[in-house]
């Protein structure tokens, strides 16, 4: 034999394969590539008027903080404890029972204990005890308290940007502590000293200046929709005619810009346009798009309450300017959390709008009585329920569909049945993922809350593992080949996640499925779907797979 191989014992000795068992506070911070997003571009920070715009690198020792950063954070903490009762309560009442510990997809996927929700919150709580409680001041570490050092601050930044604010953990806490709220609060503090990430700051700045996260200007927005018009005509023989900023329209439609500018969301955007055209032809529905309110998403939500409010304001402002009756919202995730949780009190009340009523069915959307904004799956479900759509689900026959509950519409607004009802009416083959991975207990895509950058791919892929694992299960068990969702971040993030874990499964928005099934008045023979794939071929392929299986 050639060179002698090291014995296993030698190998094991050489590799420190068993990390030492130490208290979490003693575990030094190890900032790893692939787990964090790049620091914010100072230009974007400056555009937004946020503090301490400068280039900095998380891997450098010097984060170029303002000299009095400790004081800034302390005062910011104090101010918010007074302002947000929830934060104060969440700081005080955790009994460290651990019920939330193993419920976070980032902990489950990365295996890093500091991604246990209880420890994520302890990062801030330990400083709270030190700065704001008598016992903490007195007993220090024995009481789980520690002063805010530079290392602690860095740890905040690293782990608060490894939380997608998905709220899954809060479901399991006997006290209802919402770690997502703690992360939101913590990120707001970090922003006070200029610790942001570019994947959030630049979209926010774009949105502030141009109306949407990608910074696409109004004419390009319209160009894109015009292209969809041509594309729809090519595939269906029907020319749809979207309206822009029509004063006095009945309904203003707002969706995340991802639907307009990124695949496969683009097919969902085409789906909305076909649905509106159908409803206009048949029932005279009057819907308008806006290139001003061209973004439903709100990355301001991931920055601070103030920034969220600024970006959200244009929805009501545009509705008011156009004089519409109510607002219809597209398939987005966090947009709905902002609408349901904050918009009404932040930029409302929108007294100038009507309680939404579906003009075609007469259904009054009580759930939107206050916000005046209806989710498109609620709207479409209502149309289907009342027999108002002409559907041919056979065009989706080659699909075996499962549904991912996006964190925000599910846990943030309780939207469970409507998307499923719609899917079941436009597709014949629908399969649920296991119960502890859907509905309230759904697992995050791994890329929420502004974490869907490229550079933190390892975080996204490991954090998305629990979701992907459940998809893999239904793929193997039932042959599922399509993952439906109602969120633009999902449509951007899940294809990549699938690519890595279950490459046989593709991703779609619900209204792409609707549009493929919807018969338009005067349509030509529909030989392809919206993606331009030949329906006969897809069907033959699917049948072949079933035969073999």
């Amino acid at each position, binding site marked *: 034999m050639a060179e002698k*191989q090291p*014995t*296993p*014992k030698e*190998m*094991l000795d050489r*590799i420190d*394969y*068993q*990390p030492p*068992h130490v208290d979490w506070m003693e*575990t030094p911070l190890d900032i*790893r590539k*692939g*787990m964090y997003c790049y620091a914010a571009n100072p230009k974007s920070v400056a555009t937004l008027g946020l503090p301490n715009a400068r280039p900095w690198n998380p891997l450098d020792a010097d984060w170029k903080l303002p000299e009095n950063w400790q004081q800034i954070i302390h005062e910011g903490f104090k101010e918010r404890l007074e302002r947000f009762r929830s934060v104060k309560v969440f700081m005080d009442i955790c009994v460290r029972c651990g019920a939330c*510990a*193993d419920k976070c997809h980032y*902990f*489950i*996927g*990365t*295996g*890093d*204990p500091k991604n*246990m929700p209880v420890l994520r919150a302890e990062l801030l709580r330990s400083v709270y005890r030190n700065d704001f409680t008598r016992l903490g001041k007195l007993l220090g570490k024995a009481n789980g308290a520690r002063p805010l050092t530079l290392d602690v601050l860095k740890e905040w930044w690293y782990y608060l940007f490894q939380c997608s604010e998905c709220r899954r953990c809060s479901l399991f806490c006997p006290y209802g502590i919402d770690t997502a709220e703690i992360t939101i609060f913590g990120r707001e503090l970090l922003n006070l000293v200029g610790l942001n990430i570019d994947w959030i700051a630049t979209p926010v700045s774009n949105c502030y200046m141009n109306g949407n996260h*990608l910074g696409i200007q109004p004419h*390009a927005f319209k*160009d*894109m929709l015009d*292209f*969809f018009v041509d*594309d729809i005509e090519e595939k269906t023989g029907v020319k749809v005619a979207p309206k822009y900023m029509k004063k006095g329209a009945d309904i203003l439609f707002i969706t995340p810009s991802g639907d307009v*500018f*990124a*695949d496969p969301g*683009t097919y969902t955007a085409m789906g909305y346009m076909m649905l509106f055209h159908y409803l206009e032809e048949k029932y005279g529905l009057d819907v308008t798009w806006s290139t001003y309110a061209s973004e439903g998403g709100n990355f301001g939500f991931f920055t601070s309450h103030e920034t969220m409010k600024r970006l959200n304001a244009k929805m009501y402002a545009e509705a008011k300017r156009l004089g519409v009756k109510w607002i219809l919202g597209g398939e987005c995730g966090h947009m709905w959390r902002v609408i349901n949780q904050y918009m009404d009190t932040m930029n409302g009340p929108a007294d100038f709008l009507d309680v939404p009523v579906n003009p075609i069915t007469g259904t009054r959307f009580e759930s939107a009585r206050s916000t005046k904004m209806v989710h498109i799956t609620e709207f479409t479900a209502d149309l289907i329920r009342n027999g108002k759509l002409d559907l041919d689900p056979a065009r989706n026959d080659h699909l075996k569909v499962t549904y991912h509950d996006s964190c925000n519409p599910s846990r943030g607004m309780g939207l469970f049945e409507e998307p499923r009802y719609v899917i079941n009416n436009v597709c014949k083959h629908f399969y649920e993922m*296991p119960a*502890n*991975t859907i509905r309230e207990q759904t697992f995050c895509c791994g890329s929420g809350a502004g974490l869907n950058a*490229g*550079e933190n*791919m*390892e975080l996204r*892929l*490991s954090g998305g*593992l*629990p979701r992907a*694992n*459940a998809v893999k*299960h239904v793929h193997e068990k039932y042959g599922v080949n399509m993952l439906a969702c109602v969120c633009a971040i999902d449509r*951007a993030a899940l*294809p*990549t996640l699938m*690519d*890595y*874990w279950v490459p046989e499964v593709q991703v779609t928005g619900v209204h792409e499925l609707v549009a493929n099934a919807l018969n338009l008045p005067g349509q030509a023979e529909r030989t392809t779907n919206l993606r331009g794939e030949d329906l006969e071929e897809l069907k033959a392929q699917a049948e072949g797979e079933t035969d073999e299986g």
Partner: protein
Amino acid sequence: MAEALISLIQKKRATIVSKWFDSTVQAYPHDTAVFLKSQKDQFANPVGSSTRQGIETLMDQLVGEMAPDAIKAGLDPIMRIRAVQSLSPARATTFIFALKQILRELFRKELQEADMARQFFDLEARIDRFALDGFDIYMGCRERVLDLKANEMRNRTFRAFKRAGLVAEGTDNEPKE
């Protein structure tokens, strides 16, 4: 073939699997290892359950056919997870070598016989095969991650814009596959 040793291993299979699994999850911090061992629901604990399943498959092959596809099926889920968990290739594959140590300790007495020792030598070659395949899979996964990192965003938005004819033909910004 190492028949005598194989039948010994088969008799103690449950013990070996459990020891091997325990040592495999030692790659993680203490609290994580405890969770990986104790949570039995495969959807609540995909890392633990994929690891356990992978180990079972590898055990089948160790004492069986050494079928390349089956070995890959056993290793892939474990290495695919480790490739995105910031584990170095060495730390990610150490668990494979640990099997040698486990077997050696378990059969210390038996291995003193010359024939058994020879059989063990064959078996070690099989374990080395696992390790080499493991490295390959790990590296393949890393390449995939880097590829996704580099091309994801450009692919999705660029494609949409290009379809819409909003990008001039022949630009050199086109993402490489």
